[in-house]
């Protein structure tokens, strides 16, 4: 008895290829920026910007808004959520993020923690003569 049709098999292979390629692409495009900062956004608005610093390692930042409470810990060039009052605790389970473009999302509290590259913000590139 053959349940999988030919179309199914092609579909599965196609999806594996697409997702692996795009995974590779998003991972790769995140690498080429060296200066990074943490952008903390609540409900779409950026409320805090933190540039990584050796002095800040181990520092915790409480984020208390009308949507909920999260406690963020900064490590060596990485950041994570260690406490949250949301029911699923997905943001805590995710652990550290360190690369540009990586994000931690806490949907119930409308919190997004994103690592951004400083170069992204510049409108004009350097002009060299």
């Amino acid at each position: 008895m053959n349940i999988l049709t030919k179309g199914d098999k092609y579909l599965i292979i196609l999806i594996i290829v697409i997702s692996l390629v795009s995974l590779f692409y998003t991972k790769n495009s995140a690498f080429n920026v060296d200066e990074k900062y943490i952008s903390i956004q609540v409900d779409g608005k950026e409320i805090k910007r933190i540039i990584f610093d050796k002095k800040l390692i181990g520092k915790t930042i409480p984020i208390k808004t009308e949507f909920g409470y999260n406690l963020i810990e900064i490590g060596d060039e990485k950041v994570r959520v260690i406490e949250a009052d949301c029911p699923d605790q997905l943001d805590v389970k995710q652990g550290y993020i360190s690369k540009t473009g990586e994000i931690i999302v806490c949907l119930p509290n409308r919190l997004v923690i994103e690592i951004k590259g400083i170069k992204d913000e510049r409108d004009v590139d350097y002009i060299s003569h």
Partner: protein
Amino acid sequence: MKGLKKLIFLSLLVSLGLALSVIESMMPIPFVAPGAKLGLSNIVILITMVLFGFKEALIVGILKSFVFILVTGSVSSLFYSLSGSILSLFTMYLVFTKFSKVFSLIGVSIFGAIAHNFAQILVASLMMKNFRIFSYYPILMLTSLFTGYFVGLASIYIVRNLKKHMKIHFY
């Protein structure tokens, strides 16, 4: 199947989907992909679509989402589950009616799972006003491949049995 019998059968399907969602929400989430779910209640919607049709499946899906809010109490998740199930139903119906020669129910449910994830990420990024969330989509796509496969496999067996028994009891 008509009238009262259909009504009862559809409400049974709604409650079955609800029970599956509740069980699913109790399950621990795999570490690799936070936010990924098994999509067990998708089995119910897929079966309804195959046995009854598009309209009935839409009703079951929407009712299930609404009653699930009453169970869990988180209203903000309504948008995610509602948008996900509606878009996945549209996709599944399209694939099922147009390409049922090419894809079995497994393919149909994989399409549904991918559309479901797409709708949820879209709603999430609109709510957060941050389209970077889409960078998470490839991982969800890979997991939806596995969950879609097993949902489709389960639906194939269930549909086969239900078709056999419904002929005897209802027609």
